[in-house]
């Protein structure tokens, strides 16, 4: 290729890229929603959701009204529990649970204090609305901790052991240190996860839609009779979309996540944006592949859901990967998002340097390269 050829090649690319940008900028509604997705959407996800047991609505039925029962019930405190008042009867509790107005009921039996003082084992009854299994399980495990430590204190006191000096007992104190997100701030996790989700959605949907639109309108025929190669048709689409998505990610990070939620960015942001660009670029191949299968936008819309949903849900971002069945965990390694998540969390929260990220990067490159190559191959075969 001579220099003149190369100049022409470059100029064609530049013109095509400009065309893609213009097309994108003219769809005001679409543009507005891209901005919405990277800002308000990320904000809502980061601020609205916690998977922790948070102010679980609790009502109690204290049939003993003793110092002991008050002491025990008083230990069910925010942030995990929220006392919503007293019950007059068990039916009332059942009704509140049925209507979903409360999540837990606690019942102290009569003679509670008396039984405890006379050395009889007594019980605190707890009814949990387990329609949400995770929170139901958490509620019972916190309650078990509360009741367990209360019981231990009472019995040690009765046995005359310790006498307040727990040091004089063979007790193991377990000190937990949570790394990377010491306060287990859900906003960081949900915010980053939502950002990665939005990036992935656009990385697949935008190029796919841009491609199919040309097909549907017949403008692709014009492009094909022009002196452009399939690569020159496809590549500018990916460039323009990648640019838009990177700008969106920047907006999300600098306008929402960092100022509003104090997200620490412990690693290099340059590295983060470079690898995000790489991810968007390679994942676009999936969208282009979907575009070669579909004949109209409606088809592409459904096909991308089909590609996106497993990608997002197998990535381990929404659910802990440890909880997945083994065969699904195996499939997870086939999702480029899986590697990108390790990269994004690694850089932003863990502050990992480039050299610690190589396993994830090479995984992403290998998958992304294959996907992109395959998309290009299908496109060439269809239009070349």
């Amino acid at each position, binding site marked *: 290729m001579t220099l003149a050829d190369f100049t022409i090649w470059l100029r064609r690319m530049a013109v095509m890229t400009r065309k893609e940008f213009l097309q994108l900028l003219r769809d005001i509604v679409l543009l507005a929603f891209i901005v919405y997705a990277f800002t308000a959407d990320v904000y809502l996800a980061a601020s609205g959701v916690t998977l922790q047991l948070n102010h679980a609505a609790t009502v109690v039925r204290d049939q003993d009204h003793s110092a002991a029962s008050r002491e025990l019930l008083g230990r069910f405190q925010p942030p995990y529990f929220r006392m919503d008042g007293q019950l007059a009867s068990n039916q009332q509790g059942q009704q509140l649970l049925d209507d979903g107005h409360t999540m837990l009921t606690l019942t102290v039996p009569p003679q509670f204090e008396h039984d405890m003082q006379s050395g009889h084992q007594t019980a605190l009854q707890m009814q949990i609305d387990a329609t949400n299994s995770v929170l139901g399980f958490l509620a019972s495990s916190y309650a078990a901790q509360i009741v367990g430590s209360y019981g231990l204190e009472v019995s040690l006191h009765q046995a005359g052991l310790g006498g307040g000096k727990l040091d004089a007992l063979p007790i*193991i104190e377990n000190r937990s240190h949570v790394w990377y997100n010491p306060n287990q701030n859900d906003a960081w996790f949900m915010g980053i996860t939502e950002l990665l989700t939005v990036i992935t959605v656009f990385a697949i949907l935008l190029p796919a839609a841009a491609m199919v639109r040309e097909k549907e309108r017949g403008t692709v025929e014009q492009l094909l009779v022009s002196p452009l190669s399939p690569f020159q048709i496809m590549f500018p689409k990916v460039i323009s979309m990648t640019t838009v998505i990177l700008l969106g990610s920047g907006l999300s990070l600098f306008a929402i996540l960092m100022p509003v939620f104090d997200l620490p960015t412990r690693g290099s942001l340059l590295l983060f944006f470079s690898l995000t660009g790489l991810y968007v670029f390679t994942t676009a191949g999936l969208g282009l592949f979907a575009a070669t299968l579909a004949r109209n936008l*409606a088809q592409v819309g459904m096909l991308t859901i089909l590609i996106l949903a497993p990608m997002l849900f197998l990535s381990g971002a929404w659910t802990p990967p440890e909880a997945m069945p083994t065969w699904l965990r195996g499939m997870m390694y086939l999702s480029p998002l899986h590697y990108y998540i390790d990269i994004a969390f690694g850089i932003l929260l863990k502050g990992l340097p480039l050299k610690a990220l190589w396993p994830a990067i090479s995984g992403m490159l290998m998958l992304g390269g294959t996907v992109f190559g395959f998309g290009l191959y299908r496109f060439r075969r269809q239009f070349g």
Partner: protein
Amino acid sequence: MNRHRVLAVAYKEWREIVRDRLFFTLAFVVPALLMLLFGYGLSLDVEDIPFAVVDYDRTAESRDYAYRFIDSRYFDFQGYVQDEHALAHLLSQNTIRAAIIIPEHFGRQLQTGRATSVQTLVDGTFPFRAMTTKGYVTALNAAANQDNIGRLLAQAKGVSLTKARDALQPVKLEVRYLYNQSVKSIWSLAPKLLMVILMISPPFLTALGVVREKESGSIFNIYSATVTRGEFLTGKLAPYVAISSLNVLILWMLTVWLFNVPFKGDFLFFLLASLIYVICTTGIGLLVSVVVQTQVAAMIVTAIVTVIPAVLYSGVLIPIPSLGPTAQGIAHLLPAMYFTNIVVGCFLKGVGWAALWTDVLILAGYAVALFGIGFFMFHKRPNL
């Protein structure tokens, strides 16, 4: 409204959907596939957490302590590690999610009846997993303490070990899990997935179907035809409501027969409520299609206005009473929450009309409002 014209529009739309074989197939495949994927993959049970142990003590006591974790089904032992420095590397590479560090003199302290401490490191990238992990650690540690103190008490008082342990637990916690006795996460998830999927799929189909005419220009035939806008919208949407209703049945069968979730309520009531919900979500698609001009925008707007509310503000992950006041307000403004009450009520609680009529009524109000707004915003003579 002329019945024949409505039927003619509906028939035309139906033919158009059926003729596009890929789109027609996907209209049924996508919801079912989402159900399968989420149903199998979206487990929130945290088990098999990979962890490592640093044992600076290497005594019988420290090994006993470590074995409590190694034997537990919640943890997946990855081996002993030399020192804390090696742990940092394993944590950053996601090889382990937690670690236990047992200090020197651990065994001697316990033997001489004095308190000691251990450290737990937890990867906090996923706050929900970190919290659950901490919960398991606390529970296992509490069991260790109970055994140690029990032994001491048995010696001091000359009673049997079981008796001493009972004495340390004067209060038992008796937990009853309502509606989902074995706390299966699939029982709590699958019915809500039905809600989520029916929130996403019908608007998608509808919005694409209507905007397609706008983008291809065939809408001008409608503008110039004698059909009124009411007749057009009714006929246009009918096939999508029909497809979505069929999807309700498919999803119901998957939930009950594949995931073995009990259906305790009234089937007819459920069908009627679902039909109203489907009309409601189809109405969302209609509204989107009236606002946007291109199919790309339709896809993205639909994805954003449906997915986030369906997941965050509907009670799928967090029960509504645990949300903050603003989030609760948003939840009450959106239809998803009401249908969550209905599916949970029908499947797990076995309640019907008496408990849920307000929810059904509100959904019906929604459906009317959405169609009303759509009707008034759709003009046969748009300002071009």
